[in-house]
C-alpha cells in the first residue's frame, strides 16, 4: 500500500462526501434560493476534489504529468456561478415561493421589478 494510493483515496472520499452533501442540501432545504447554495458550492468543490484525485492517479500511473483534468475544474469554477446567477434570475421572474423567515424582502421586490422592466423591453 503506497502513499499515492492513500492520497488518491482520501481525495476521492472527500469529493464523494461533498457531492452527496450538495444533493442532500438540494433535497432538504426549504426554498429555491436556499437550495441554490448547496449545488453551486458543495458539488463544485466535490467534483474539484475528484478531478484532483484523477490527476494524481494518472500522473503516478503513467509517470508523466497528466493534468488535463484542470480544464474541467477551471471550466466548472467559471460556469457554476454564472449558471447559479441565471437560475436565480429565472427564479425571480417566475415568482418562486420564499421561506417565511426570509429577511430583506424589499430587496427581493426591487430585484423582481428590475426583472420585469427588462421583460417589458422584450418584444417578440
Amino acid at each position, binding site marked *: 500500500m503506497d502513499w499515492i494510493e492513500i492520497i488518491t483515496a482520501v481525495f476521492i472520499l472527500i469529493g464523494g462526501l461533498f457531492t452527496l452533501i450538495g444533493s442532500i442540501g438540494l433535497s432538504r432545504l426549504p426554498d429555491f434560493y436556499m437550495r441554490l447554495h448547496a449545488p453551486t458550492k458543495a458539488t463544485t468543490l466535490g467534483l474539484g476534489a475528484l478531478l484532483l484525485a484523477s490527476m494524481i492517479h494518472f500522473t503516478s500511473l503513467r509517470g508523466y504529468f497528466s*493534468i488535463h483534468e484542470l480544464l474541467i475544474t477551471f471550466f466548472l469554477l467559471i460556469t457554476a456561478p454564472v449558471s447559479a*446567477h441565471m437560475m436565480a434570475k429565472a427564479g425571480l421572474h417566475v415568482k418562486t415561493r420564499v421561506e417565511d423567515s426570509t429577511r430583506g424582502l424589499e430587496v427581493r421586490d426591487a430585484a423582481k421589478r428590475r426583472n420585469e422592466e427588462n421583460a417589458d423591453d422584450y418584444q417578440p
Partner: protein
Amino acid sequence: MENTRRFRFLPMPMHSVLLFMVWLLLNNTLALGHLLLAAFLALAIPLLVAPLQHTQPSVRRPLLAVKQVLLVLGDIVKANIEVAILVMGPLSRMKPGFVAVPLDIERELPITLLASTISLTPGTVSCELSKDRRFLYIHALNLVDEEELITTIKERYEAPLKEIFGC
C-alpha cells in the same frame, strides 16, 4: 482600445496565452508538433476574432491578481465547509435573507468577477444587478448582520478588484 492598438499581430495577448495552454491541456502533451500547432492557433484565432471584442479594462496589477485568486480559492474551501455544516445541521437555525450591496466599480468585467466571487464564497449567491449598475442584489443563506456582510464583501473582494483593474 489601448490594447488593440498596441500589438498589430498579437491583438489579444492574454487570450493567446490562454489558447496556447488550453490546446496543450486538451491534448495532454508537450510534443513538438502540438507546440507548433498550439502556437499557430494562439496567433491565428485572435487575429480572426479581434474585431468582435468589446474593450475591457486591462489588468494593471498582475501580482495582486494572483494573490486575490489564491485568497478566493482558500475562501471557496472554507465556504464549502461552512455550507456543509449549515446544510447538515438543524434547518430552523438558518436565517436566510436578501441584501443589496452598493457597488463602486462600474465596468462589466470587474462586476462579473465580483458576482462570481460572491457566488462561490461563504453563504451568498448573487441574484440580480440593478439597472443603473449601482447595486448587486444577493441572497445569503445565513444572514447574521447585514452591515457586516456588506463591509466584508466590499473590503475583501471589491477593493482588490478595484485596485487590480485601476478603476
